[in-house]
């Protein structure tokens, strides 16, 4: 697999949230606003890229890998927990409002299965540069997914899109035009499940249609031959 495919697979073909359905807990919890989703994305990019790099570096030395293998899961957890704590402290110091808004979901990145999954499935068996690219692709794929869910939820729930701090896009004129009010339920937990379910259904329908088209084309080619 070349570097471009390695990067893009995390965003499209193997998107951790929309395809593998990993990391659902923070995805459902923090997607109440676009700002939260962007903040979570920044934290996950930092942790996933660095954890993939460090774990790949440890496992690329044959001697060290042989010693680490029996205790590899605790090693992964120590590395990931350290990086998450660093992110948490930096966010607390420099982005305190976002830190307060994300709350418990920052330390919970430690147990995000995307990060442990990539460490075990990719970083432990590949070179450091490839692991960085894989981590970046997966983290951005996760980011694209949670930002999509948050746009859907925040718009339908409040009529606004909070990009960062006071930077807000007011889309309430759409609701005014439709003579209805935003549906507050979409900012609640039930709205998170409904939004994600709806988005997954659309993705499933589009990919089924595409597969059907490919199958039809293959049949036509076969018939012509």
């Amino acid at each position, binding site marked *: 697999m070349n570097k471009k495919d390695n990067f893009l697979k995390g965003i499209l073909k193997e998107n951790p949230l929309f395809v593998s359905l990993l990391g659902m807990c923070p995805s459902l919890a923090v997607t109440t606003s676009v700002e939260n989703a962007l903040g979570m994305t920044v934290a996950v990019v930092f942790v996933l890229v660095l954890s993939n790099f460090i774990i790949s570096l440890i496992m690329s030395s044959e001697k*060290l890998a042989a010693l680490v293998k029996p205790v590899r899961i605790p090693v992964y957890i*120590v590395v990931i927990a*350290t990086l998450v704590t660093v992110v948490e402290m930096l966010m607390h110091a420099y982005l305190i409002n976002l830190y307060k808004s994300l709350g418990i979901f920052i330390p919970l990145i430690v147990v995000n299965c995307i990060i442990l999954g990539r460490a075990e499935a990719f970083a432990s068996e590949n070179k450091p540069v490839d692991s960085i690219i894989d981590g970046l692709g997966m983290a951005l794929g996760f980011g694209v997914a949670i930002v999509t869910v948050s746009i859907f939820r925040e718009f339908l729930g409040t009529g606004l899109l909070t990009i960062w701090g006071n930077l807000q896009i007011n889309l309430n004129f759409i609701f005014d035009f439709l003579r209805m009010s935003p549906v507050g339920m979409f900012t609640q937990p039930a709205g998170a499940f409904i939004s994600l379910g709806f988005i997954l259904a659309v993705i499933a329908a589009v990919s089924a249609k595409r597969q059907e088209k490919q199958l039809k084309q293959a049949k036509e080619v076969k018939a012509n031959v």
Partner: protein
Amino acid sequence: MKKDNGLISGLVLLSLGLICGLLLALVNGLTADRIEAEELKLKFEAIEEFYDIDEFDLEEVILDNGSIYVLKNKSTSDIEHLVYSLRAKGYGDDVEMLVAVNDDLSVEGYTVTYQNESPGIGTKIVGNDFNYNQADDLSSFDSISGATVSSSAVKAIFNEVAGRAADDFGGGLDE
């Protein structure tokens, strides 16, 4: 016979733990002061919703479950307002509130400064009017239906204010 490297593997893990611990200590050393300053800034911003801090001498009295910000008249040093920053056990975590009380025991206002309650249920305590207007009178307190534990945390904080406000204005803080 295959050599058992269990002990060495454990030592590798221990070394990694030590390196990570050192890194965390370093980052903590770099950020601790700023975190404290940011937290204080947030608290002062919350107090300024009620009073202009520049008009008073501000002192902090530390309690077991929070602190009291004492706003004294700059010329007479009389206590004019007390802002209680107190914590009580909520549903998800502690609930922290600021309660601003005037010297006639009327409540200037209150605000939730920290909570980790259930979204959509317990979080209703943020910005809610609990009908708490006189520091020593909780008879008209309105709790939020469906958010019993979170409301109880708020009431526990108000109860503490109710129990001590008169004494604090009467010189209790000097003892």
